[in-house]
């Protein structure tokens, strides 16, 4: 049985890390990171079968994850460090010259846990499909997970990938959408609406699950359901109904914190709302 309280306490700490990381360099993307970090915690601390101490690029025999919306790097790095891929002290180097914790995840600095360079939106799902096909060729029964932003779905390449995966029964793949309804210039509905997203994925031939993206219990249940749908000839996607900025009251209900770091006062105010559960880095 998953220990929901423990997972929630990890999420709290990850949220603290996110705020402290972006505040320290006055740059980065707190909004999406805060909203999607519960999903990452559920994956890395409960769902995925992975071995942080023995990271290998090929990921053979392990579940692997690709962060397509690479601007959520702060959330990913915190979760990777907190699950043991590298020391939590290294989080302090985020976005600083010479760091392995680049602004967007990259593979050129050798950071354990990162297998794809992302940050240019719309490319991760294609890579995840490739990785899933590679697993099939290797007779590796582990899964590939991929997270995308909802604004990111406006990129045409995403839908090329969506069509391919369904047509070619890439069924060892679980995609997820950080469905927060917001992007840089405003709400998706104002910028470029996605319409009925659930139906869209469905008519493209995917199995679609809606999940409460900031409810750990529901996330675990949805991920378990998603896994039960794999290996049945149909790719699976989870629509994560999240809130941008979740956990910090003044960062919620707006797109303004997509890519803006809090100043000293705001960071203190945010940290006040986030309990230190596992110890700050």
């Amino acid at each position, binding site marked *: 049985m998953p220990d929901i309280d423990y997972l929630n306490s990890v999420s709290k700490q990850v949220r603290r890390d996110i705020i402290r990381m972006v505040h320290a360099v006055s740059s980065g993307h707190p909004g999406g990171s805060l909203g999607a970090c519960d999903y990452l915690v559920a994956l890395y601390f409960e769902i995925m079968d992975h071995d942080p101490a023995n990271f290998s690029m090929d990921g053979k025999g392990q579940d692997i994850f690709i962060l397509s919306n690479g601007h959520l790097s702060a959330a990913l790095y915190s979760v990777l460090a907190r699950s043991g891929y590298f020391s939590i002290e290294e989080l302090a180097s985020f976005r600083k010259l*010479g*760091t392995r914790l680049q602004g967007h995840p990259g593979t*050129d600095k050798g950071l354990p846990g990162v297998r794809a360079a992302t940050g*240019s939106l719309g490319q991760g799902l294609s890579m995840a499909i490739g990785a899933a096909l590679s697993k099939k060729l290797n007779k590796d029964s582990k899964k590939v997970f991929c997270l995308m932003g909802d604004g990111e779905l406006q990129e045409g390449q995403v839908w090329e990938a969506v069509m391919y995966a369904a047509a070619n029964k890439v069924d060892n793949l679980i995609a997820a959408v950080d469905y927060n309804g917001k992007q840089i*210039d405003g709400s998706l509905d104002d910028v470029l609406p996605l319409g009925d997203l659930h139906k869209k994925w469905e008519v493209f031939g995917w199995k679609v699950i809606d999940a409460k993206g900031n409810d750990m219990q529901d996330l675990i249940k949805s991920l378990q359901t998603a896994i039960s749908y794999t290996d049945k000839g149909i790719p699976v996607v989870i629509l994560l109904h999240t809130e941008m900025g979740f956990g910090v009251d003044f960062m919620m209900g707006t797109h303004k914190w997509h890519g803006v770091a809090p100043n000293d006062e705001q960071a203190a105010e945010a940290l006040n709302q986030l309990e230190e559960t596992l110890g700050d880095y």
Partner: protein
Amino acid sequence: MTQSLIIEKKSTRAGFGDALLELGERNPEVVALCADLTGSLKMDAFAAAFPERFFQAGIAEANMMGMAAGLTIGGKIPFTGTFANFSTGRVYDQIRQSIAYSGKNVKICASHAGLTLGEDGASHQILEDIGLMKMLPNMCVINPCDYNQTKAATLAIAEYVGPVYLRFGRPDWPDFTPADQKFEIGKALCMKAGHDVSIFATGHMVWIALQAADELANQGVSAEVVDIHTIKPLDEEFVINSVRKTGCAVTAEEHSVFGGLGDSIAQCLVRNIPLPLEMVAVNDHFGESGKAMELLEKYGLDVPAIVSAALKALERK
């Protein structure tokens, strides 16, 4: 001249945004498209003032380029706005096919070029865009050096008929050229006359080149600093005359050593007046996260790098 004044800092992208607003008032045919980066490109004033002439494409740059090409068919003058990597590499075939080969009057306006966008890192720091764009037939490539020049260039390209790649940056940067300048596409500008070495610089590097020239003067070297805001078409006559006078040259750009200004100047010199040339550019590398000035230093795009390149060129005379 360069150090005595207190010079205000303003971003080149703000120059673009301010000029775009002015163009909106001046020319009803001017339209603008953006791919979810309205604030970053400083296009929000235009979008607010002329909502019916502003097209929010969403995060879909390929479609944006195609729509821009199509808008010219009805006689519009479209200005597209997104970051430099999403303005070029991301949509290269759309630009090649629908804009350059089709000879469409689209102004591809690209912010956050080069290393100086800083912390977002290599994924966003395209250092190949000048090369990509100048290789396209029909494409004019412009990289102004400061706020005032970017503003003037933006106004000028609206008058020019044909596809243009206008490249500018993110950081606040010294605004040292005149506010009322007339921008002539394809005309090199002498920023400081000299007789020992010609420094051809583009974009943010013009300011750094001027600092380097001061430093060289302290060492008894008279450097000529030339602002090559238009990389294509290159002002070959100016380049040849300058190097004929000085006898050697240095190029400086916030771009890869391959395919950029250095390449263009090298071609020009080899064909016309083969004299020593040193290039200050990023040496076959991706960028990384860091502060703008830290990155310029790490990748050898700073004053000492230009000074030593100049001394090396002089030695080879």
